[in-house]
C-alpha cells in the first residue's frame, strides 16, 4: 500500500539532504495546509520530510535594526508578547489565523511556501520588503519575498530548498493589519491590508492581501499619503479627510480582485479601501 516514507531531520542541512535523497519528498511543517491537501486528494507525496524537530527553524532574533524569524515559528509565537512588541501587525495577522489549534501548529515558513493570495502574514511581509533566506544543496540564498511568491500558490522555491527564515527591517512607528472575512474568526481573508508608518523616514507602506494573485503594494497610495501627511503636526502626524479619501481610492486602484465563491471583485475592492483607510487612521490622526 502507498505508505509515505517519513524523514525526521534535526538540522536544516539534514533536511536538505533528505529532500535530495528521496525523489518526490515534500516538506511538512505544521501540516495545516499540507494535510488539508492530502485529505482532498490533491497531494500524495511518496515521502515526507518533517521539520518539527529542526530546532534552528524555530528560533527568532530581534536586533535594533531587524527581526529574523525562523520558518518554523508558529502563529502562537508570532502573536506572543516578544514578537508582538516589535511587529504588532504581524502579531495581529497571526491572531486572525484559524483557531487556537491551527495557530499552535501553523508556521510562517508554511504560509510563505503555500503562497496563497490569502496568506495572512504575507501583506505585512510585503509591506516591510521581507527577505527570505533559503537553503538548498548548493548552499544558501537570500531572495526578496516578491521573488519567492510568483503567483497564486506558486513560488520560486526549488523542490530541494528549505525556507530557513524571514528577515524584516524594523520601522519606527505604528503598524496595523486588518482582515475582512464573512465570519468573526477562523476565516479565509476576502480582503486584508497591512499599513506600516515610519515616523523617521516619513513614509507609509501599504500592502494588500486577497485582492490580487499575489500580495501587492499600493505604491501610488503610499506616495500620495506620505506627501499629504503633516508629519510635524503638534500631537503627531495627521492627514486631512480629503487626503485620506484619495488614499482609499488609490488603494482600490492597486487591487485587481476576482469574483469567486467567497466574494465578488466589487466587494473586495470596496473592502480593501475601507480597511486600508481605517488602518491608516489608527496610525495617523485625521486633521479636523
Amino acid at each position, binding site marked *: 500500500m502507498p505508505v509515505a516514507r517519513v524523514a525526521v531531520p534535526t538540522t536544516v542541512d539534514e533536511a536538505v539532504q533528505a529532500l535530495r535523497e528521496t525523489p518526490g519528498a515534500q516538506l511538512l511543517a505544521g501540516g495545516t495546509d499540507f494535510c488539508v491537501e492530502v485529505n482532498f486528494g490533491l497531494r500524495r507525496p511518496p515521502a515526507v520530510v518533517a521539520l518539527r524537530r529542526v530546532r534552528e527553524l524555530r528560533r527568532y532574533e530581534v536586533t535594533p535594526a531587524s527581526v529574523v524569524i525562523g520558518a518554523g515559528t508558529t502563529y502562537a509565537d508570532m502573536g506572543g508578547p516578544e514578537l508582538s512588541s516589535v511587529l504588532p501587525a504581524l502579531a495581529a495577522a497571526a491572531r486572525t489565523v484559524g483557531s487556537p489549534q491551527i495557530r499552535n501548529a501553523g508556521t510562517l515558513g508554511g504560509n510563505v511556501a503555500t503562497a496563497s493570495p490569502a496568506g495572512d502574514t504575507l501583506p505585512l511581509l510585503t509591506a516591510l520588503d521581507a527577505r527570505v533566506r533559503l537553503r538548498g544543496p548548493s548552499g544558501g540564498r537570500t531572495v526578496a519575498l516578491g521573488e519567492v511568491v510568483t503567483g497564486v500558490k506558486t513560488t520560486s522555491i526549488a523542490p530541494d530548498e528549505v525556507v530557513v527564515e524571514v528577515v524584516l527591517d524594523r520601522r519606527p512607528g505604528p503598524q496595523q493589519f486588518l482582515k*475582512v472575512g464573512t*465570519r468573526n474568526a477562523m476565516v479565509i481573508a476576502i480582503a486584508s491590508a497591512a499599513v506600516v508608518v515610519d515616523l523617521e523616514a516619513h513614509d507609509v507602506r501599504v500592502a494588500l492581501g486577497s485582492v490580487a494573485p499575489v500580495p501587492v503594494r499600493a505604491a501610488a497610495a503610499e506616495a500620495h499619503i506620505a506627501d499629504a501627511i503633516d508629519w510635524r503636526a503638534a500631537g503627531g502626524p495627521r492627514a486631512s479627510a480629503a487626503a485620506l479619501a484619495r488614499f482609499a481610492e488609490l488603494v482600490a486602484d492597486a487591487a485587481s480582485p476576482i469574483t469567486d465563491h467567497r466574494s465578488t471583485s466589487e466587494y473586495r475592492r470596496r473592502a480593501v479601501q475601507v480597511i486600508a483607510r481605517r488602518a491608516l487612521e489608527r496610525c495617523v490622526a485625521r486633521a479636523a
Partner: protein
Amino acid sequence: MPAPSGTGIAERVAVGQVADRVGASAARPDGAQKTRGEFAFSSDLWMDAMLWGKTLRSPHVAARIRSIDTRPALATPGVRAVVTAADVPGRPTFGLEVPDQPVFASDLVRYHGEPLAAVAADHPETARAAAMAIVVDYEPLVPLVDPDVALEAAPIHPDGNVFRHLVIRHGDPGATGDVVVEGTYEVGMQDQAFLGPESGLAVPAEDGGVDLYVATQWLHVDRDQIAASLGLPVERVRLYLAGVGGAFGGREDVSLQIHLCMLALRTGRPVKMVYSRDESFFGHVHRHPARMWYRHHATRGGDLVKVEARIVIDGGAYLSSSNAVISNATCFAPGPYRVPNAFIEGYAARTNNPPCGAMRGFGAVQACYGHEAQMDKLAAVLSMDPVALRLRNALERYDRLVTGQVLTGAAPVREVILAAASHPLPPPADPGGSILALPGGAGATAGPGDVRRGVGFAVSFKNVAYSEGFDDFATARLRLETGVDHEPVATVTVATAEVGQGFVTLAQQIVREELGVRRVVLAPASTVDVGSAGSSSASRQTWMSGGALQLACSTLRAELLVRAAELWECAASQCVFDEGEVVQAATGERLSVQDLLSPAPLETEQEFHHRPTKALDADGQGDAHVSFMFAAHRAVVDVDPDLGLLRVVQVATGQDIGKAINPVQVTGQIEGGIAQGIGLAVMEEIVVTEGRVRNPSFTDYLLPTILDMPEVLATVIEEPEPDAPYGAKGVGEPPTISSGPAVLAAIRDATGLPLTRAPVRPEDIALSHGETT
C-alpha cells in the same frame, strides 16, 4: 461473525437518582464520553479483515452515460469488488416518499456528485485510486437549474419536474385590505453540516442477509429501502444504530447504506465506508432554496385581512421529502397569525441542482423569512410597533388556520412574543472592550464608531410529528427484572435514533417517573429487537417514543398492581403506585417493586400513535397536523455597514414547549438551534453555480463559531399540550426557524436596507450601503 467494535451501541446503564425524573435536568448517559472524546461514532466502527468502500461520483451536473468501464478498477491490486447499477439485485431506486432516485446512475446523471459505482478494497487509499480509475464516457447535457423554468420545461425525469403543486384557498379570495404590502424573498441552500460524516459498516450474515451498523435517523425506513434494493426480505437486513455525530435532517435519506450492503454481499467480507468532508456535502440532501412572493392585506388598524403567497422551492434532482417540505412551507406561509382570507400556492420543482430534503425547521424556515419580513413592512406602512402588530394578530387557541384546521391545542403565541420582547436589551458596545466583540471579530476591522446597532423581531410556528394522514407511531419495549444486587432493573429497548437530541436521557427520566426505578438500562437501538420508532425528526421523539415508553411503563405498572392485589387478595383497584412501591389503599401495606418481581420478570412492547391527521383537500383544507409549536425571537445585531460585517450581540426568545422534561437539554436545543438559525441568516450557504457545488468544505461553507454566537436569553412557556405525554411538545426545531429572520430584521433595522435574501452577504450590505450614502 462477532460484532464489530466502535459501534457506540454498548448498553448504557445509568444508575441515576430516583429524583432524576421528568422535569429534572438529569445528566446524559453519553455526556461524559462525548465530552472526553471517548464516544465511538460511526466513523470509529472497526472489524478485523474489513474492506474499505469508496463511491465514484459524477463530476458533471447533467450528462448521458454512454458507458462505464470498471475493468481498470478491478485490475487494481487489492480491489475486491466494483458494483454499479447493473449489480443492484432488487429495486434499482430508493426514496423516502417515492423511490425515484437510482441507487447508482446508469443512463443519466442528474446532479453534481451523483454516485455511479462503488469499490471495495483492502485499503481506503486503494479504493480511492480504483474508483478514480473507472472510465465513464459522459455526454454532458445542458443542466436545468432554474426551478421556475423547470416547472414548465421538458421533464428531466420520468416522474416529471413538478414534485408537488399545492394550493390553499381560504375565506374570500376577493377580500382586500386598506393597506397592501408586497415583497419577494429568497433563501439560499443551507447544509445540515453535521460533524460526523456519513459512515457505516456492513457485515455479510450466514443467512444470506446483512447486518449494517450505521448512523441514521430512522433505522426501520432505511431497512425497508435497503431490503427492497437488495431484493431481500426485511428480516434478513438488520440495522444497528452506530454513534451518530449529528443529523439535523441530513440522515433521513439513504446515502451509503445500499452501496455498503451490496459490497459486503458481493465480497463476503465486512465493508466500511466513511465519507470525507467534501464527499459528505454530496452525500446528503440540503435545505431547499426558496423563492417567495408575498402580498399582505390589512386594515388601517392593523388587522390582517388576507395573505397571498407563491412559494417555489428547489427540490433538486430527486424527490426526497420535498412533498412534505412544500406542504409545510405552504401551510405555515402566513406565520402564526389570524388570517381570515388566503390564497397560497406552493411548488416543489425538480432541477439538476443537488437534491434537497429534510433539515431542522423543514419548510417553515423558508416561509418565516417571507412572512416576518412582510409583517415588518406592514408595521412600517401602518406606523405601528412591529411587536404590537404581531401581538394584535397573534393566533389564539380555537382560532382557525388558513388550512381550516382549528387550533385545539396550546397556542401561547402572545406569551412567546411577550417573553422574547421583555428580556433586557444588551448594554451598548463597550468602546474599551475586546475587538472580538465587534463586527469583523478577530480581523479587527471595526472601531466602535463604525458600528450601528439594530433590533429585529420574528415569530414562527411549525407542526410536531408527521402530518397529512401519515400513520405516525413509535414502539417501545420495557423489561423489569431483579438485578444481581436485588435492585429492580428496567431495560428500555427502542429503535429511536439518538442523534444528539437526548432521548437517551429522557427515556431514563420517564422510567424513573413512572416506576420509581433507579437502575435503567438502554439497550442498543436496532431493527432486530423492537418495532419502528419512526424518525428522529419533526421534533417528534419526545412525544412519540416518549409516549410509547410511557405507555409501556403504565402497562407494567398495572401488572405490578395486579401482582400485588393477588398477594394481598384484594382488587387491583385497591392498590396504588407510590414512590416505587405498591400501596394497599385500605391498609397502608407496601410492597416494593423487587418483591413483586421475584416470581418472574415483566415485559411489554407498546406502540404509540398520535391522533390521526387528515390529508389536505384540493383547496388545501384539512386537519393535516397534530400539534403546533410556537416561538418568538428578538435579535440585536451590530453592523459595520461600510464593510457589511456584523456581530449578533444577543438573541432573546420565548418558546412554547409544553413541558420541559429536562430543562438543561431544552436550553441546549434552544442555543444550538439559534446557532443554526443565525448561520442561515448570515453565512451558511452551499454556493451552487449552474448546478455545480462550489464550496464543499468547511473552509468555505462557513458555520458560526463561538465568536459569532450571541448571548441567548430564553424563556420557555410551559402550557401543557392536551394529548402529548407530560404535555410536552417538541423543542428542537423552533429555535432554528425565527431566529434567522429576527437577525435579518435587525440588520435591516441597523442599515435601512431591504435585504430580501438569506444569507445576507457582506456585499449585499456594503455595496448597497455605498449607493445610499
